[in-house]
């Protein structure tokens, strides 16, 4: 069963070929067999998963099922789950059991979807390799000496190894798309505000967005149908109708105008990765799309801008971890100051502390204009680049990541080089645009990802464009040898 997509599993459940309990048990068995080699789950929710599966079987029997009823998925450990530990990859929340569910979790519960467990991630979603997790690095199923990418590294690895048919992720600077690319799966970051952030532990609130991580674009459409929508509990949620994302998957893409930003194919891009992306784009031309070169002239400013905006917002968001109301508290504090500083100093890992300090510095008295305000002005210029591009083209394509998966430990002492691995993904977050990564070839036996970016709220177009490619290629259905 594990080589089936979400949509195939849905069809099998509805046809009565197997029950949700059988399916969930099969995945729990696979998790037991394969997770030790990957460290992709922080928590496996065996008991609650089986209870949810039994309830889903009742719904299926009674004919009250919706498309994803009874299908098991994995949740990134950034989404609060009532009764199941939510750590965000941090010692700070090692003991935290959320008193409420994230909206995303509620939405899947309402459909009768089974939650297999919570996936490993970079601490507080800060990282591009999954090495900053308090629970240790996740290993890439294609080569366990390599990183899976991050921050949604566990969510990418569980789908690549088929120890979950699909998962959720979050993307602040590429954290869905980059691990999807490095693990050879499909990942979609929706438009900012499309998916509720309620109960999704905040990193950088003007950038964070949850989305699906799946085998196929069709599966991503089914997941997004559940996740998208207005949520009054999220003050930045967008109140606008949600289309059926599966409706236009098969539309022709003849005449589609694809823009290739010259800045995404220059210095820093691995030559083999560039070739893989060009081969994918040639496939699109065969499908009737036209290709033109475009320019996003402020691309080089995206990483510097991001490393002001994201740390500034994180330093504010993470001030809630004070050792008083929830989370880690240091032993024997001598006074309140000691309680705050030692609880935070001991509870947060190195990368999180670096980012809190950068953000604190950028927002401190006398520096605000030079850093945060300047970053917001540049954010406008970066966003304007895209607006101009979308007057000429329908979608933008390029590599998701400059290189295939790198070695565990290879960049962990070099934060700056690590930051630059998100060079092609960060701009879409700054501009609030939807972006996808789809499996598109291999480089040295490791997956390559094609990134597709569309205009605001054009998730249907992205999914259509990705789906048509997956109808004529089979990169998305390849499973690493050890997990077949």
């Amino acid at each position: 069963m594990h080589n089936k997509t979400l949509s195939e599993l849905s069809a099998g459940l509805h046809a009565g070929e197997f029950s949700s309990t059988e399916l969930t048990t099969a995945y729990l068995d696979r998790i037991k067999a394969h997770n030790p080699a990957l460290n992709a789950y922080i928590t496996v929710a065996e008991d609650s998963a089986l209870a949810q599966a039994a309830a889903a079987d009742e719904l299926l029997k009674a004919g009250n099922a919706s498309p994803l009823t009874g299908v098991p998925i994995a949740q990134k450990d950034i989404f609060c789950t009532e009764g199941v530990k939510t750590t965000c990859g941090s010692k700070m929340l090692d003991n935290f059991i959320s008193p409420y569910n994230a909206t995303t979790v509620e939405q899947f519960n309402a459909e009768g979807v089974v939650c297999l467990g919570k996936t490993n991630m970079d601490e507080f979603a800060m990282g591009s390799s999954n090495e900053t997790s308090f629970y240790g690095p996740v290993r890439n199923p294609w080569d366990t000496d390599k990183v899976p990418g991050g921050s949604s590294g566990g969510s990418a690895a569980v789908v690549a190894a088929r120890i979950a048919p699909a998962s959720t992720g979050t993307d602040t600077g590429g954290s869905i798309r980059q691990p999807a690319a490095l693990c050879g799966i499909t990942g979609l970051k929706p438009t900012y505000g499309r998916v509720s952030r309620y109960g999704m532990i905040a990193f950088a609130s003007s950038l964070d967005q949850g989305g699906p991580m799946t085998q196929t674009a069709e599966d991503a459409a089914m997941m997004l149908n559940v996740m998208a929508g207005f949520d009054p509990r999220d003050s930045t949620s967008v109140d606008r109708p949600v289309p059926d994302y599966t409706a236009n998957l098969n539309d022709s893409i003849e005449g589609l105008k694809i823009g290739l930003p010259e800045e995404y194919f220059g210095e820093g891009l691995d030559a083999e990765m560039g070739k893989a992306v060009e081969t994918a784009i040639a496939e699109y031309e065969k499908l009737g799309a036209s290709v033109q070169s475009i320019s996003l002239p402020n691309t080089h400013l995206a990483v510097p801008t991001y490393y002001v905006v994201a740390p500034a917002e994180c330093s504010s968001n993470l001030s809630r971890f004070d050792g008083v109301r929830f989370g880690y508290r240091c032993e024997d504090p001598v006074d309140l100051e000691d309680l705050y500083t030692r609880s935070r100093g001991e509870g947060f890992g190195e990368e999180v502390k670096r980012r809190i300090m950068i953000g604190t510095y950028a927002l401190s008295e006398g520096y605000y204009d030079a850093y945060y305000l300047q970053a917001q002005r540049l954010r406008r210029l970066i966003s304007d680049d895209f607006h101009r591009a979308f007057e000429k083209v329908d979608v933008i394509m390029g590599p998701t990541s400059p290189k295939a998966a790198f070695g565990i430990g290879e960049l962990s002492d070099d934060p700056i080089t690590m930051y630059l691995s998100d060079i092609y993904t960060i701009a879409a977050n700054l501009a609030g645009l939807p972006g996808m990564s789809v499996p598109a070839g291999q480089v040295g036996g490791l997956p390559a990802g094609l990134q597709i970016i569309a205009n605001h709220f054009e998730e249907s177009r992205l999914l259509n464009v990705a789906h048509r490619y997956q109808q004529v290629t089979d990169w998305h259905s390849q499973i690493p040898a050890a997990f077949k």
Partner: protein
Amino acid sequence: MSLTRDDVDRIAKLARLAIRDEDVPAYAKDLSNILDLVAQMNEVNTDGVAPLAHPLDMSQRLRPDAVTEADRRETYQGVAPSVDDGLYLVPQVIE
């Protein structure tokens, strides 16, 4: 940009982070490198460019000032490190 030991101590104090003395030089180096990366921002003249705070350029939605949440104090305090009689406990602040 090169941050000194004192700079790191000051930032750590503002951020309420206890940093071990032996770790300060590494933070000074890493934070300085990040600020060097960020310094590329200064090469751009942004006079007359309006700051973009929200990626969709939307303003904050308002809601009616009405009570919508139930009182769940006990549940929420159930995850706190130390509470007594509905109060969060911290070391004594006033002698």
